[in-house]
């Protein structure tokens, strides 16, 4: 069975939805950050798929930039997790609700 564009896009869609499930349902802040990485990977996959379909290299360049931004975001996000853990001694997102009304 030949693998078409739709197969790759379906994989990207399922990866994205699994990432959304992780962000919505998990209570550990680190696993939430990992789920965000899953979503970014799904988007990267979609970009590279469309780059292949159109013969244009732009999709791969954008995937490169998405990877750069993901690295920067993970660095800052993990710094925040460490700083919050020092104060609250927990990574449970239900307990980190200082700004909630």
């Amino acid at each position, binding site marked *: 069975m*030949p*693998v*078409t*564009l*739709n*197969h*790759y*896009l*379906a*994989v990207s*869609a*399922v*990866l*994205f*939805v*699994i990432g*959304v*499930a992780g962000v*919505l*349902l*998990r*209570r*550990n802040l*680190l*696993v939430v*950050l*990992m*789920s965000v*990485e*899953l979503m970014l*990977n799904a988007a*990267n*996959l979609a970009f*590279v798929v469309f*780059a*292949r*379909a159109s*013969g244009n*290299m732009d999709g*791969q*360049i954008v*995937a*490169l*930039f998405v*990877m*750069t*931004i*993901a*690295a*920067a975001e*993970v*660095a*800052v996000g*993990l710094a*925040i*997790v*460490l700083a919050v*853990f*020092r104060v609250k001694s927990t990574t449970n997102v*239900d307990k980190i609700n200082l700004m909630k009304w």
Partner: protein
Amino acid sequence: MTSLLFFVASLAAVGSAALVVSRRNPVHSVLFLIVCLLSVALLFLLLGAQFVAALQVIVYAGAIVVLFLFVVMLINVKKEIVVFHSSLGHRLAAFALIAVLLIQTLAIAVAGTAWVKKEAWMAQSGASFGTVQAVGRELFSRYLFQFEVATILLLAAIVGAVVIVKRKP
């Protein structure tokens, strides 16, 4: 052969992603994230994106996941007490949203690309598609401004991370 590799890589990616979001021990989640990232790198290779696949392995699985592992080891939660959201209403709403999102995205992915030919969907491109030289040529000519801005973004991230983690004397 490529279709067999595609099915193996996509099953590994989806399976390990499901395991990432469902393990109690965060270290297990990180290890399954590595498997997922390597499977996505294999998918990139199948799509002719050699440089992006190599960067996925080196940057994502090699640097970002190592950073995650450092922080997971520092925080040292051995086993989660509460895995999923405590409130049942929240969980049902989240499941409903996830189901709706899954149906929508799969519908678009499967049926929404009518402009692309079914079998011969890959565009005819030369042997230099996705090579380091091709990416470099684009990055330093058409995307030069974005490249320099990404430099500044990385500088901001480095400074921000150090400032946030610094202990107040």
